[in-house]
Each structure stands twice: as structure tokens, then as C-alpha cells.
């Protein structure tokens, strides 16, 4: 009896350590969460994550308003924000973005074997679904690409659990603010053929490391974790 109690205690302690460790990475906040970039210090709570070189992320003010600029020259780094929401209850995310300059990509189909060399986008918006084991973490990545048709869903050349969704395509809207609104619950189901679990982070990245070129994009009015028509 005593032996069983000890084993149970040991197991409970073990599970508690794992659970506390896991949940300490992710913070729940009020929903919907808004990121209007209206203050110079708007990026203070975002974490910079460097992959290859540093992209310049900066809040640019215009009178009482502001927006986020990203300038990349042969670099890849992103900004990352931990949050928590259930996409089954509040599936919507939205943002505004503007591409000033696209990375220079070679011609060819995306299915080329060397397409990791073309895995640069002027603007990316990530929704990350973390799991206890990091290899099971899944990511939806909304991109604005110059050539790939809008609505295309691709698997990242880096990992099968990263699905790239082309949310905006072409040069037609270059230099203009474009509003995007996505239902991450539906997108996840389309991309992974299964139901999503909790969202644990969002991120933004403009990168040109693979194409060794230059890109610039602006982001604004990010809103996450709300119901449709809220």
C-alpha cells in the first residue's frame, strides 16, 4: 500500500514538473490580443529570434499612429510573441502588411529540388501550435510571395510540420497596405488534415538569407484570438 502510494507520488511529481515546465513557456492573456505598434516601445514584449543574420525590425511612428518595418539584407531573423488561445473557440487572426521590396528569386517551379534556395519571403506571419515534444510542434506560416498563386498550401522544405500558406501573391499590391484575416482553425485542418490544439505563439519574419537579396515589408494592426465578425 505504502509502495503504491510512493510510486503514485513519484509519478504525480514527474507529471507536475513536466506540466509546469511546459506551461511556463506560454502565457495566457486577454483575448483578442491586439498589436497596433502605436508606441516606440511596442516591440519590448516581442523576442527577437535570429536564424541567419539580423533583420532590422523597427517601429516607425507617424503622428499618433505607427507601424512595424522589417528590412532584410541577406539575413533571416524574426520577432516572436508567446501567447495562448484556443483556435476552436477563437479561431481568427488578422493583420495588415505592405511589401516594399520582394526578395530576388530565380525563375522556376516551387517544386524544384533546390527550392530551399527560394525559401525567402518578403513577409511571413506565423501561428505556432506547440506540443510537449518539440518535434510535434506544428506551424502555419502565411506568406506574401511574388509568384506563387494565392491559396497555395505547401510543406516547408525544412520540416513537414511547417505548412506555408500563400495569403497574398504578386506585385499588384506592392507598396499598398493589404488587410488579411484568417481562420486558423480551418487553415490548420486544411493543411494538416486534423484538428488543431492550442496556439502558443505568433511570429513575424522577413528574410532573404537563401536568395542573398534584399527585402522590405511593413506590418501593422495584428489581432489574434477572436471569433468571426467580432
Amino acid at each position, binding site marked *: 500500500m505504502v509502495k503504491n502510494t510512493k510510486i503514485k507520488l*513519484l509519478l504525480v511529481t514527474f507529471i507536475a*514538473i513536466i506540466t509546469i515546465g511546459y506551461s511556463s513557456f506560454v502565457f495566457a492573456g486577454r483575448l483578442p490580443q491586439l498589436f497596433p505598434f502605436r508606441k516606440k516601445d511596442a516591440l519590448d514584449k516581442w523576442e527577437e529570434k535570429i536564424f541567419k543574420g539580423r533583420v532590422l525590425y523597427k517601429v516607425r511612428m507617424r503622428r499618433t499612429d505607427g507601424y512595424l518595418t522589417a528590412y532584410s539584407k541577406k539575413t533571416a*531573423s524574426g520577432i516572436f510573441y508567446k501567447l495562448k488561445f484556443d483556435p476552436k473557440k477563437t479561431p481568427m487572426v488578422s493583420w495588415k502588411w505592405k511589401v516594399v521590396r520582394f526578395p530576388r528569386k530565380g525563375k522556376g517551379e516551387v517544386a524544384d529540388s533546390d527550392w530551399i534556395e527560394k525559401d525567402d519571403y518578403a513577409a511571413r506571419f506565423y501561428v*505556432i501550435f*506547440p506540443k510537449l515534444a*518539440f518535434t510535434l510542434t506544428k506551424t502555419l*506560416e502565411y506568406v506574401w510571395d511574388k509568384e506563387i498563386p494565392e491559396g497555395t498550401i505547401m510543406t516547408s522544405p*525544412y*520540416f513537414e510540420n511547417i505548412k506555408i500558406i500563400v495569403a497574398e501573391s504578386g506585385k499588384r499590391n506592392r507598396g499598398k497596405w493589404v488587410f488579411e484575416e484568417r481562420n486558423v482553425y480551418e487553415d490548420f485542418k486544411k493543411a494538416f488534415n486534423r484538428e488543431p490544439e492550442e496556439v502558443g505563439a505568433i511570429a513575424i519574419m522577413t528574410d532573404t538569407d537563401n536568395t542573398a537579396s534584399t527585402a522590405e515589408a511593413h506590418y501593422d494592426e495584428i489581432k489574434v484570438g477572436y471569433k468571426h465578425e467580432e
Partner: protein
Amino acid sequence: MRNKRKKKFIGSPAQKKLLILVFTSAVIPAGIVALCLYYLIFNLLAWQIGIPEAVAYNLIPVARKVNLIILIALPITLLAIWTIALGLSHRMLGPLSRLEGELDDIISDEKSGPIQLREKDVLKPLADKINMLINKFSSS
């Protein structure tokens, strides 16, 4: 010769219990610590790296190599722990089993001489005292 080891495994329930106890008390804490370290190191690193492509590029190949090493090393480690546990159980319960056998032989008159245990056996002093006691009774 009863005092020579004849079996790799002693079939007595006491030794089985001791063997399992020593084995599990080594494997369970080691397993928990290893799992915690594995989980903490890789997950902390994954969160630290953040960008999914960077995680995939930098961490997944490492995790796959580590998994392969674990897959190879785990059976070897378990076998080593089992061997050590078996050795310990022999060392602890082997003399007791031999002493019990010697006493059985004396009681059933199959043997009349003193109890013989190995010089290094932990129960050798006890066996010597029992021999002295038997001598004392037989002389009185």
C-alpha cells in the same frame, strides 16, 4: 561442493525480489532524470530558437542523432544495470542460500562436519560462530 556457485541465477524468491528491487531502483530514477533532461534541453532550446525553420534546421538533426544514440545505448545500459543488479543480489543473498543449504545438510545428517562458506562471504563470521556453537553442543 555446495560452496561453489553453480547457477547464474538463484531461483529463490528472495533473490528475485532483490534483483528486481535493485534493477528498478536504478532504472526508474535514471530514466526520469534522462527524460527530464532530454525534454528540458530540447524544448528549452526549441523555444529559445523560436523560428520554426531555425528549429528544424538546427535542432531536429541533433535530436535525431541523439535518438539514434539512445536507441543503441539503451539496451546496453539496461543489460549493464541488470548484470550489476544480478552481481549484487548474488553477493548479498548467495551466502545466505549456501548457509541455509549447509544447515539443511547437517539437520538431515547428510553432513557431519562444520559449515563451510567462502572466506570472502559476508556470512562467514556467522557460519564460524554457528560451527563453534555446534562444537560446544556436541562436546557437552
